[in-house]
């Protein structure tokens, strides 16, 4: 019996230490969480307050008379630069730009990953290594060369317009942004998919070949349906990056009708006329952040799972 009781007695001393450890760990975690969530909290409560309450009250206090007015104003009435039609137009601008950019870059990344792992050619590793460089290039260094390229494409678009009758979207700011984000995103999406497909059983591809499936049939029927986790990871990653991008957006679509949400938000907040409407600004910022939040909530389960899968197998 003594053999059983001795470890138990030792453990009772250990239990106290364990509880203290737990308290310290969870206390610290709670503190950091609080610190991190504080700005979000301030934004949320401020966006539901009236201007009077903001000017006279405590920044951290809950709204006394919650109102949706600032949200409606931000969406439909607030001034972006000189036009006062709210941010809704720019919100759709961002959607129109982000959805194609995410889908195209993700599909190209999947295709690259498929070729680089299942149809290896001489120098495949070198090609992959070069593509990885895209992940390390600072955004700022490509601004000017890319502007030159977009300018040339725009002039080519004008030529096409004059000769064929359509510019095929060349020179359009939204198309330009989609192009830039696809080019910049391919490095990352290829990295994700290559590592995922590296661990993907090659025998499945061989079996499909024997079954008579073609290159694209294998991709569409075998590879893609079994890529859900990495697909979600890539979509979340690309969506967040492209939606939140300010640099390319302000450089290539900083003025005019195609201006994305991030640039518009900046213009709302930087308006120099009249009183600074904090509640409207906060509501606009929340609206700008909602899509990425939504994507995380809907697909976050897969995000963690996908990252883990990549980490263990890749």
């Amino acid at each position, binding site marked *: 019996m003594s053999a059983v009781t001795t470890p138990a007695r030792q453990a009772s001393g250990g239990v106290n230490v364990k509880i203290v450890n737990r308290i310290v760990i969870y206390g610290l975690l709670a503190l950091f969480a609080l610190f991190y969530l504080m700005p979000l909290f301030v934004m949320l409560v401020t966006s539901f307050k009236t201007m009077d309450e903001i000017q006279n009250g405590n920044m951290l206090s809950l709204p006394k008379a919650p109102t949706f007015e600032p949200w409606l104003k931000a969406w439909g009435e607030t001034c972006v630069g000189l036009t006062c039609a709210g941010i809704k137009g720019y919100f759709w601008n961002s959607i129109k730009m982000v959805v194609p950019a995410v889908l195209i870059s993700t599909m190209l990344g999947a295709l690259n990953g498929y070729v680089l792992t299942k149809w290896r050619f001489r120098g495949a590793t070198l090609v992959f290594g070069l593509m990885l460089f895209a992940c390390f290039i600072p955004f700022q260094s490509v601004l000017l060369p890319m502007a030159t390229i977009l300018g040339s494409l725009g002039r080519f678009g004008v030529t096409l317009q004059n000769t064929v009758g359509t510019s095929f979207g060349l020179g359009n700011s939204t198309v330009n942004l989609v192009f830039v984000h696809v080019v910049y995103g391919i490095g990352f999406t290829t990295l994700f998919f290559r590592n995922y497909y590296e661990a993907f059983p090659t*025998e499945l591809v061989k*079996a*499909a*070949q*024997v*079954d*008579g499936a073609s290159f694209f*049939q294998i991709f569409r*029927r075998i590879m893609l349906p*079994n890529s859900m986790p990495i697909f979600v990871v890539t979509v979340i990653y690309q969506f967040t990056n492209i939606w939140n991008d300010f640099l390319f957006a302000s450089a290539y679509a900083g003025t005019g009708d195609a201006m994305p949400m991030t640039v518009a938000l900046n213009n709302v907040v930087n308006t120099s006329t009249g009183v600074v409407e904090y509640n409207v600004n906060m509501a606009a910022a929340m609206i700008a952040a909602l899509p990425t939040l939504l994507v995380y909530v809907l697909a976050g389960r897969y995000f963690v799972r996908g990252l883990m899968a990549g980490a263990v197998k890749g």
Partner: protein
Amino acid sequence: MAFLEIDGLRKRFGQVEILKGIDLDLEKGGFLVLVGPSGCGKSTLLNTIAGLETITSGEIRVDGRAINDLHPSKRDIAMVFQSYALYPNMTVAGNISFGMEMRGVPADERQKAIDKVAKVLQIGHLLQRKPSQLSGGQRQRVAMGRALVRDPKLFLFDEPLSNLDAKLRVDMRIEIKRLHATTGTTIVYVTHDQIEAMTLATKIAVMRDGEVQQFGTPAEIYNNPANVFVADFMGSPAMNLIPATIGGNGGDLAVVLDREARQPITLPMANAPAGLSAFKGKPVIFGVRPEALTDPEGAERNASQIATADCHIEVVEPAGSDTFAVTNLGGKGVVARLRADANIQPGTNTPLAFNLTKAVFFDPATESRIR
């Protein structure tokens, strides 16, 4: 003309030659097993037949038609993979019919073919399940179903049983044999398990380092091994390969086996192979299978040449159906296979009967057979 013919097939990866000139042929309805240790090139050879690997030179013909430059899907073959390679996103029915779908077979014909195969393999109740919901043996059946449904000229099996547990493996082995007998298909089968090779094959090709060491029926391979490698690889327990010298007076030859601290054993040979006289006074490797080295009562009655010698038994292993006894001859542990009820004690001296009609001899320098 054989149904499957492989002529001078070579495969090179960069500077490394994986297959060094393979010549094989197989009659229609035959069962060819490629067997050898890992890295011997047997799977590569199968993949070249399937078209999943290109070949450097040589020719592969099926039914008189050269197929080595055709796409895998055009070769009229079906393949069962080691990992089964079932498509995880499709149901069992989807897996089985995928090949037909890719070939544009109409849906009602596909359904008929699925039902037929499901009946043969008794997987009818599994058709709507996903592969992840199946057990190992069921996956194996589905993988075979996917091959069978196409009714191809040639079936290729790449170590199909190696992922199953021991008991299931024996069951599936019998199932494959029955399938082959009832459907009369032509099969090329890769394995590293010599028992699978012996039990399934009509022809065996024993491979090592990209070369076929011996090609023949299971009985030929087992009883007449061409060299030390084949003799050692095929059979369980393995053949005893004992260092020996050839002695004897005048025209009579005898095998002399050294023993530790005792007089050597001399076994007189009556019908020695012709080549053996050249080795008189020289060392040879004396090969005798455990079942040809038994207790005198258990020795084969109609064997023409049996020599008996006292041996010191070191270890006794009762295996249920047989009892294995280990003795030391020529500096090596030698396994004898006795009746299950043989009265034998470790540490004693017991007479053992050598069935010399089944004995084989190898040249220690070249390791090839002395005939």
